[in-house]
């Protein structure tokens, strides 16, 4: 059979060709990632799994003995757990943004990274979702947070931002999982055609009998389009809601109108950084340079630069508003953030989030992968500390100076924090071996365009 004439690029994204020949290089390269695990891989997996186990143990211990084993002290009742919760929710933003928004904007370069970004979204949400429960004083009563019919005829408090969280996070989790899966289906079909044994069974089930007919492709694209439409507002809503946990309180340093945009920008910022932090090594290890090119990384660096500017601006605004308000507790809170006992955290946050990313003004920095990697890591650190400063810093310098506090995380909290990273990596490592790390079809689609361009086709 002869390949159909290449369609004009404008519609290429909408109507796809039949799958490229089975021996396509893309198939081989990308599916190679799913091949036999190396020693290194197994070792790494073992490490993260044991870390998760350890964290699980500490959590059980904490639940039994009481939250006193965490570093909480009057009046600082939110600490590492909520910090980490907000951090991971932030991470979860890159995926949807890349997949949905960039898809709608037809940003081609997204295709190489959207799959892993979506995966990260799902895993990050799965991680974040744990922390609101971990931080509960009586975690075994967590289901009281859900509105369900019960014999007491009791209801939840819809006025509480914490309840909005419950809905925001669960919605986001659902959509991102669906999105991830729908995008996966065609590639699962390819994997199915090559796999043997239990994998064959698994993929056959997951591929939902995908044949790659034009009809199916149409349906698939429509679904993706609609899902993108659904997911786009979520990118904005989820972290806005999370930010209201703080903004809707009266705590000096929390009670600010800019929180929603501020948090969303920060989320995208950290999300992209995390994608880079993860994808750079992956690309290196599995030699995917042909698909995930420096061009991708440069674009993401641009994004990071942009969001870094927004975040930096937000910091400035915060301080300005605190000063301009003339409210003494506000002023004091912010002054002590920068120059009080939490000054280290504050300056880590400012330098990592607002200063270092400025190197991306220079093309050489954007294209120099080690630099990009280092900055992305710094941004992740900085964003974690941003939440630490906002939450712990504000709580420890509130209205009543008689009970200003000092908070230091306990080993339990740090273990569980480490556990959260392990938990996330565990899922990602498994994902590497189970699913195509790059959306094969979308990559091939690009190949076809390239060919089209080469033949001096559409233009």
């Amino acid at each position, binding site marked *: 059979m002869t390949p159909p004439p290449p369609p004009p690029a404008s519609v290429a994204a909408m109507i796809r060709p039949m799958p490229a020949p089975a021996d396509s290089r893309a198939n081989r390269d990308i599916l190679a990632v799913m091949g036999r695990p190396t020693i290194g891989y197994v070792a790494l997996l073992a490490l993260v799994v044991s870390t998760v186990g350890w964290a699980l143990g500490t959590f059980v211990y904490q639940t039994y003995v009481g939250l006193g084993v965490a570093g909480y002290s009057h009046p600082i009742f939110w600490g590492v757990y909520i910090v980490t919760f907000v951090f991971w929710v932030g991470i979860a933003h890159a995926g949807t943004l890349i997949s949905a928004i960039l898809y709608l904007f037809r940003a081609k370069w997204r295709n190489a990274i959207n799959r892993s970004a979506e995966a990260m979204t799902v895993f990050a949400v799965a991680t974040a979702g744990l922390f609101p429960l971990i931080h509960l004083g009586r975690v075994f009563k967590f289901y009281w947070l859900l509105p369900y*019919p*019960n*014999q*007491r*005829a009791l209801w939840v408090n819809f006025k509480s931002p914490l309840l909005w969280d419950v809905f925001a996070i669960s919605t986001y989790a659902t959509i991102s999982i669906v999105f991830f899966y729908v995008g996966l289906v065609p590639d699962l079909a390819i994997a199915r055609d090559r796999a043997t044994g239990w994998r064959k069974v698994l993929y056959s089930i997951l591929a939902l009998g995908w044949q790659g007919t034009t009809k199916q492709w149409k349906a698939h694209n429509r679904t993706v389009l609609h899902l993108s439409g659904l997911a786009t507002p979520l990118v904005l809503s989820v972290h806005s809601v999370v930010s209201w946990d703080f903004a809707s309180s009266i705590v000096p340093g929390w009670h600010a109108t800019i929180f929603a945009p501020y948090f969303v920008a920060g989320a995208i910022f950290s999300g992209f950084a995390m994608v880079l932090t993860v994808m750079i090594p992956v690309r290196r290890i599995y030699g995917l340079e042909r698909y995930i090119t420096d061009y991708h990384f440069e674009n993401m660096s641009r994004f990071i630069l942009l969001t870094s500017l927004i975040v930096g601006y937000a910091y400035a605004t915060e301080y300005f508003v605190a000063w301009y308000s003339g409210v003494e507790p506000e002023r004091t809170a912010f002054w002590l953030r920068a120059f009080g006992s939490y000054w280290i955290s504050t300056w880590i946050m400012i330098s990592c989030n607002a200063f270092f990313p400025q190197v991306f003004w220079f093309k050489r920095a954007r294209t120099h992968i080690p630099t990009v990697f280092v900055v992305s890591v710094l941004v992740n650190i900085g964003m974690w500390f941003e939440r630490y400063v906002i939450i712990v810093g504000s709580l420890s310098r509130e209205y009543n100076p008689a009970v200003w506090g000092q908070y230091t995380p306990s080993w339990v909290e740090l273990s569980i924090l480490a556990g959260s990273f392990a938990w996330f990596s565990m899922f990602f490592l498994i994902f590497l071996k189970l699913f195509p790390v790059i959306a094969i079809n979308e990559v091939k689609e690009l190949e076809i365009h390239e060919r089209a361009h080469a033949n001096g086709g559409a233009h």
Partner: protein
Amino acid sequence: MASRARWRPSRRALGLLGASALVTASLLALPGPEPVGAQGQSSAAAREAQTLAGDESAPGPKQPIPFSHALHAGTYQIECLYCHTGTDRSMAAGVPSVESCMGCHSQFGADLEGVQILQRYWDEKKPIEWVQIHRLPEHVQFPHHRHVKAGVACQTCHGPVQEMHKVYLVPDTKWWPWGTPARKLEMGWCISCHRENEATQDCFACHY
């Protein structure tokens, strides 16, 4: 509700009368409604009640004494508050002291095994360790006096004790228009009653 009417505390005086009449009757060894002699044989009814109260197979936990509420509250019509004194004055429902049991039983029933056990407690001056059947969680404050004074029959929560030889938690379930059914002594069970009677539904009324 007939039972409620019968157990309204306004009838307490009558109950007391009945009880005292019973005592005097027995003292004079007159043929009472249930003839019992000071030293003589207790009635068949009494003996049967005792066996039933001690019946292992019957529902409810085994009590140190095979005491039959059916006999005392039912047959003899002794008013609840006659033994459970203070229930109309206090948050807590009083459990009769060994002394108050002996108040009557020093007079009669000596041939009954249960009364002999009682006698032993009395002689050793040891309290009787009854097994509790109706128990609310520790974080619930239940004012008995308010409910008694409001005319809520003891049976409303404790079941038809006057018909039970051996007391047990009579299962009861209130069904909500929505939501899951509330079993007896569960919060929803209390609340539904409070709703019907327009009593307070303030959390702080019971939980503090």
